[in-house]
Every structure is written in C-alpha cells, then in structure tokens.
C-alpha cells in the first residue's frame, strides 16, 4: 500500500502515527514544502518574541521519520493532482498513490486594494511560518514601529511577540473589537486593555489603505479612516485561507476548504483531507466549516490515517475552540460566544480579578462558552457542547467555582468516569475496505 501525505504539520503527523498503529508495512511518503524539522506552527510567535527556547517548538524528535518508516520529501511542493491516475506531480516528478491525504493547511491571505504593497515589499510580511519568524527576528532589529493588520489570533500573537521585543506596536482591525471570532465585546475589551498596558495602540473598525515612504523605505501607513500612523514594518495577519488553489479543475469538491465526510474522505476516490485545509462537520451549526485549530487538525489527521489504513473510524465533528493568553489574561473559548437573538446568556464578571465566565445557551444546550482567567476545568464545557447535553437540570451551577462532575446527572457522570473509552473516536467493530 502506498500512502502519500501532503503537508508536514499536525494533521500529517497524526495521520502518520495513525497509519502506523494499524499498518506497519505500507509505504508512507510525506511531502512538505518546508525544510524545517517538524515544528509547531503555533509557537512561531513565542519564538520570535524570544519567549521560548527553540528546542521547545519541535513536535517530534529527529528520529521520528525513521521510526515511523516515512520517506520525507522536504522542501518539495505538490503542484498538480491527477486523480484519475492516482498520482501527484511534485516539483515536476510524478508520484503515484494508493491513498492520498491532503493536509496542506492554509496560506495567509493578503487583502487586495492596499496601495504600495509591492513598492515597500521589503517591509511587508505575513507571519505563518518558522522561516517568517527567522527572517523577522533578524529584520526587526533595525525597526521600531511595527504595524499589524488584523487583530485575530495570528495578528494579536504577532503583536505580542513584537511587544516582547520591545517594539512600538500598533494593531489595525476591521471589526469593532479585537479577536472578533473568538471573543465577545467584554472579553475583547479586557484583552485590549491588557495589551494597552504594554503600550500597544489599537485602531478598530479600520483598515490600511496605503503605504507611504521614500526610496523604498516604509515610513507610515494611511488608514481607511484617513489617519496616518508611523510604521517601518508592516505585518499582514488577517487570516489564512485553505491552500486549495492548486486543486482547481481536478473535480475535487471544495467550498471554503476541501469538503470531507465523517471518514475524512473527499469527493474523489482514495483522497482524504484533514486539518486547516479541510471542511468538516461543525457540531453546533450542523454544517461543514473550516475549523483551523490544532486539536481539530490533529484529530482529523488521525481519523484520516485510520481510514486510509482500512479502519472505519468516524469523525464525530468539531467545534470552534481557542486557548489564548495575552498579558495576565488566560482565555479559553468554545463555540459561538457572541449571542444571537433567541439565545440565553448567563455570565459572571469579577472585575477586580478580570475574571469572566460566559455561557450562551440555545434550547438549554450550550452554543458558546467563554472563560477569561477562570479556566480551570473549562474542558467540561467541551463535553457538554459536543455531546449536546441538556443543561437545564444544573444550569444554576454552571458558573459556580465548584462546578464539576458532581453537578452532572448520574448517567453523564458515569459515562464519563467509568471507562477509559474515548469520546471522540468510536471505531467500528470491523475494518472496512474503503470504496
């Protein structure tokens, strides 16, 4: 059996481990366009900011590929997919596959319509790879005024990194508050205030229109609102899009990302997708959405690997989830924390502690949960959301400090703690040869 995996990050890595847990003989080829040792994309900001030692960002040891008997093609880019031939073109070379996993992740999105990006290209960066971090860490030595476009997770983490490097940081965001997808207005306010304590300046409900400077040196940016702000380095961090452009005209059904079923199968035979490029089931809305987070990518990679190796593992579906820290604020959020009409909200805010807990309910089921600083046991809410538990019997204790398994109905509590079986992977009893 020839397994080919495109993408050398979380999804690909867990797929390799999953395949090997079932099949020690099949050949695995792993193609990644970076030459770096297998590293965690989530830690490049801490690395840039000098917060962590480089040794802490690598996901596995050097012997990982040998141990897993994987042929690694590093620094190689998959250019074309030939589904009818069961083959892939990688830097001109054709590689055949019996099972293919597309774990190609996302690419940073650069918005159109900003004037001057080409002119000042030595001062404009996106920040999604370790190579970006290495480059920036050299470059930033001579720069002082950093402007980050986008106050989503990547933008805010980038800003945080530059703060730790002692730079003057400004963040520009189109939405009316920072972290618009992960947080609600109150939590965003807390984060913004915390960052402002570190002298970060925010311009919300705004965007960058034009870059200004002389002789190729960036001096300032003009915002949509008309304000002009000084800048000598411009980081674009408004988001990533699934890296699927190269899959056009292959017949693969894509939407925002590659659409997958509960076995991580795409619309093409023997082709699977997982991770930031895949669009799988989101449990709260019931529709398929790209959820670009590590736990989802890892789980999808694992499930894809199992299915590729003949096990009929089912992906139960995921929800948006985030764990972030800015300053003193540790934050965990699940689902959709900005309530809509018809949804019920319960929350508690301890101002002196900056501790905030909020639950959004719909039909007595949790649709969103947000925790700022009070993050102990937050994971129980993941269970309640993903298992669609009716919380009305214990709604009044959800936000208490004491909330724990004792508050849950006996059947749920027993289901959780009388077994080691995993909730997220309920394998079928027999292996099924995929169609």
């Amino acid at each position, binding site marked *: 059996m020839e397994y080919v995996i495109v993408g050398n990050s979380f999804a690909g890595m867990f797929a390799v481990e999953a395949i090997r847990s079932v099949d020690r003989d099949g050949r695995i080829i792993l193609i990644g366009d970076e030459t770096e040792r297998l590293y965690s994309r989530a830690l490049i900001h801490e690395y840039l900011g000098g917060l962590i030692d480089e040794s802490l960002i690598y996901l596995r040891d050097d012997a990982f590929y040998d141990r897993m008997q994987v042929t690694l093609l590093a620094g190689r880019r998959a250019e074309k997919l030939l589904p009818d031939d069961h083959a892939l073109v990688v830097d001109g070379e054709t590689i055949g596959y019996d099972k293919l996993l597309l774990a190609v992740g996302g690419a940073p999105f650069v918005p159109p319509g900003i004037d001057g990006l080409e002119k000042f290209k030595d001062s404009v960066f996106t920040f999604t790879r370790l190579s970006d971090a290495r480059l920036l860490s050299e470059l930033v030595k001579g720069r002082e005024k950093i402007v980050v476009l986008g106050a989503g997770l990547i933008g805010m983490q980038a800003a945080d990194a530059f703060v730790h490097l002692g730079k003057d940081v400004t963040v520009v965001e189109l939405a009316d508050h920072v972290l618009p997808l992960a947080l609600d207005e109150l939590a965003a306010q807390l984060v913004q205030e915390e960052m402002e304590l570190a002298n970060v300046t925010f311009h919300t409900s705004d965007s960058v229109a034009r870059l200004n400077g002389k002789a190729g040196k960036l001096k300032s940016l003009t915002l949509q609102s008309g304000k002009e702000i000084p800048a000598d380095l411009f980081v674009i961090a408004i988001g990533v899009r699934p890296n699927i452009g190269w899959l056009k005209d292959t017949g693969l059904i894509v939407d925002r990302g590659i659409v997958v079923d509960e076995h991580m199968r795409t619309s093409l035979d023997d082709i699977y997708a997982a991770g930031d490029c895949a669009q799988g089931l989101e449990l709260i809305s019931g529709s398929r959405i790209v959820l670009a987070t590590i736990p989802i990518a890892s789980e999808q990679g694992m499930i894809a690997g199992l299915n590729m190796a003949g096990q009929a593992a089912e992906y139960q579906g995921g929800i948006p989830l985030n764990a972030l820290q800015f300053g003193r604020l540790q934050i965990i959020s699940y689902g959709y924390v900005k309530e809509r009409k018809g949804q019920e909200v319960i929350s508690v805010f301890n101002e002196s*502690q900056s501790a905030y807990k909020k639950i959004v309910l719909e039909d007595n089921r949790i649709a969103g949960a947000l925790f700022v600083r009070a993050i*102990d046991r937050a994971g129980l809410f993941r269970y309640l959301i993903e298992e669609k538990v009716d919380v009305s019997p214990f709604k009044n204790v959800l936000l208490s400090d004491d909330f724990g398994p004792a508050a849950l109905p006996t059947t749920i509590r027993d289901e959780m703690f009388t077994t080691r079986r995993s*909730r997220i992977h309920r394998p079928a009893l027999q292996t099924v040869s995929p169609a």
Partner: protein
Amino acid sequence: MKAVYPIATRCIDCHLCEIACIIEHSQTKSPVSAHFLEGLQFNWQLSRGYADPAEAKAAVRPSPLSRCRVSANSFRFISTMCRHCEVAECVLACKNGALYRDASGRVLVNEKKCIGCWMCIMACSYGAITRNIDRQNVPGVAGNGVNHHCDLCPNRRTPACVYVCPTQALAYEER
C-alpha cells in the same frame, strides 16, 4: 491497562485522596513538609475568587497541588482524575508534543517541554488537567506553569488515592 475509576456512591467528600496524592508526589513524602515547604502552588479548594494561580498563591496559603480532585454538589461527591483515555484529546491538542503516551499506556507530560499554553485544559473533556505553576518553562509569560495531571503513581503498586480512601470509593482496575 489499569486505571483509577471513581465509585461516586461511596465518596464521603473527605478529600483524603487529594492529600495522599500531594504527599506521594512530594520530595520528602512527609505530610507536613509536603504541604508547607515544598510547593508554592495554588490550591483550588481555597482559591475561590482568584482566577489566576499566581495571585491566589500570594493571597491564600501556599500549598501543593493534587492531581485528583473531589467535586461536590449538594449531596453528591466524586473524586475525578485523568482517565488516560484510549484516544487522548489532550495529546491531540498539545501545541508542541509535550503530552505523549508511554509504553505502559499512560498519558504523561514531558515537564521540560510543556510551555503552559493550556490547550490541554481546553481540550480535556473531563476537566482532569490543572496548572502547575511551580515549574515554568516560559518565564516571560504571566502565570506560566506546566500541565499537571494524574500519572497513576509510577512509584507505587497501587495509586496513593486508591490506597488511602476510607470507603474504597476509588477502584484501581482493568476495565
């Protein structure tokens, strides 16, 4: 693989399991010094109102952290700890692979590698992980610490919590 399973109907909310866990994981194995001289951590029982471990530590008495935890609600009690899930959500969420499964099947953390990002706390549907702020691998981040969860007492035949429970409300068995 044997793991610890709570029998909630037998729990009397005494918390001796937590105390035994603290003593077993201490350096001196002495109850008094284990509780006062070794850890400067956050004790969740007394941390009401303090969301941040570091602040709680300063305000409340310092005390080491237990890996199992008794939860109480009206008249129902249960002590829970890491189940060493067959497919571990925390391992799938770990940002840098610090969480892993060892040869015996236990889910463990490499305390030198953990950066305290708390993705595991987010991911663990059973609420089994807490923040150990005694150890920090990223000192520049406020309240940093490392993952802290049940390790099934590798130096004991029977985990300390199981051994000490006065009503045998914790079972150590294969299921």
